[in-house]
């Protein structure tokens, strides 16, 4: 039993078909629970009022926006090294999901920033690096769409993904090592202790787990779609030959 068994599309389809309802169900439960808990059952912050609650969308989606790129990096590396088509397709499937999370992170940040900082947008290193990450997602998706041969497309997007990881890494750690700018430091930390009170922290953890599972659900679903559309293409090509 090795993880490479799932490189076989058939095996992947079987296992993901079995896992998908569970992952999706758990994601829905955690998200509903976390968001309802966060939005309605926590007190207003004494300074920020009820705007503090946007943290339940902002932090998890921003985290997943960056993590999605690293998942794509793993998929791309596996494709380049071992040439498993499923992993390339998973990377392709993750890109629009990651872009959406990144945009949610940017938009919720703007909505929160307007009453708190008095501005929708600031050219702060953290915000800027995140915007660049969103542009990288766009470029990555556009490159996939533009190239006709699927293997060449997988190769080239994998290379782009590796180069883009530098920027994903920058956005991930920009919160830590750039002290200038408006954006505050990391909210949760394994080492340094939390900067968020437990009243807010516990639902936040539930939301983050929910977003991780939501991401997993969407990527599994989209990968299955990609595999199926590949199969249809192969069938059509075979039919044309006959």
């Amino acid at each position, binding site marked *: 039993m090795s993880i490479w068994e799932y490189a076989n599309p058939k095996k992947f389809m079987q296992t993901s078909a079995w896992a998908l309802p569970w992952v999706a169900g758990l994601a829905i439960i955690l998200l509903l629970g976390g968001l309802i808990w966060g939005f309605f059952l926590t007190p207003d912050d004494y300074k920020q009022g009820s705007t503090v609650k946007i943290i339940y969308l902002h932090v998890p989606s921003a985290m997943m926006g960056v993590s999605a790129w690293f998942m794509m990096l793993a998929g791309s590396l596996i494709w380049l090294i071992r040439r498993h088509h499923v992993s390339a397709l998973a990377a392709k499937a993750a890109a629009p999901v990651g872009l959406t999370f990144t945009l949610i992170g940017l938009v919720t940040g703007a909505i929160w920033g307007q009453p708190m900082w008095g501005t929708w947008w600031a050219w702060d290193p953290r915000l800027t690096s995140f915007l660049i990450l969103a542009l990288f997602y766009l470029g990555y998706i556009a490159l996939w769409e533009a190239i006709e041969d699927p293997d060449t497309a997988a190769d*080239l997007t994998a290379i782009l993904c590796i180069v883009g990881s530098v920027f994903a890494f920058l956005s991930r750690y920009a919160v830590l090592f750039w002290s200038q700018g408006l954006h505050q430091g990391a909210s949760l930390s394994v080492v340094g202790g939390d900067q968020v009170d437990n009243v807010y922290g516990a639902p936040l953890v539930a939301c983050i787990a929910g977003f991780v599972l939501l991401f997993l659900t969407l990527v599994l679903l989209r990968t299955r779609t990609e595999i199926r559309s590949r199969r249809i293409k192969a069938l059509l090509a075979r039919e044309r030959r006959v």
Partner: protein
Amino acid sequence: MIALLMRDLRLAMRAGGGFGLGLAFFLMVVVLVPLGVGPEFAVLRRIAPGVLWVGALLACLLSLDRLFALDFEDGSLELLATAPIPMEGVVAIKSLAHWLVTGLPLTLIAPVLALLMNLAPEGYVWLVVALALGTPALSVIGAFGAALTVGLKRGGLLLSLLVLPMYVPTLIFGTEVVKRGAVGMELGTPLLFLAGVTLASMALLPIAAAAAIRANLK
């Protein structure tokens, strides 16, 4: 390798357009901005570093799609791939040729255009230094983008979408050097970052670009 460099330079000189066009575009951008924002000296002086850098960036971008495309179409890129020099070397040489016909002239002409933008006198030296340090990165990053899109019929727009985000660090640190230089502030940190970005992209991106070209030639 030197033969390849000379060939690329000769082609750039004789094919017309490519060589002068980038400079003319740079000039146009710098002329248009004061017409757009109004000719007040104080405003122009403040935005001069940014405008000059953005102009240089766009001028550089303009000539990128021809970096590999012509050789890809007539098949000489395949010959180069079978040549004894590694693809990484080909990419490095082609980026060097690109820099010699765009980045270097841009750097040299920038002080003249800075005059139009009313840059502070202390800024001129740092403008040239920053452009000389930063434009090689533009060429190498651009070569990577061009290598990714070389197989596409209309890759120009996609190329700019891929390349411009990667230009951002060079732009930020480049303008920071000129801004600080113009007001006489300490500028070691952005200068080092600018040089670091250039050196890192010169060291790493030819490898990525060569991998992209090999994938395109397969």
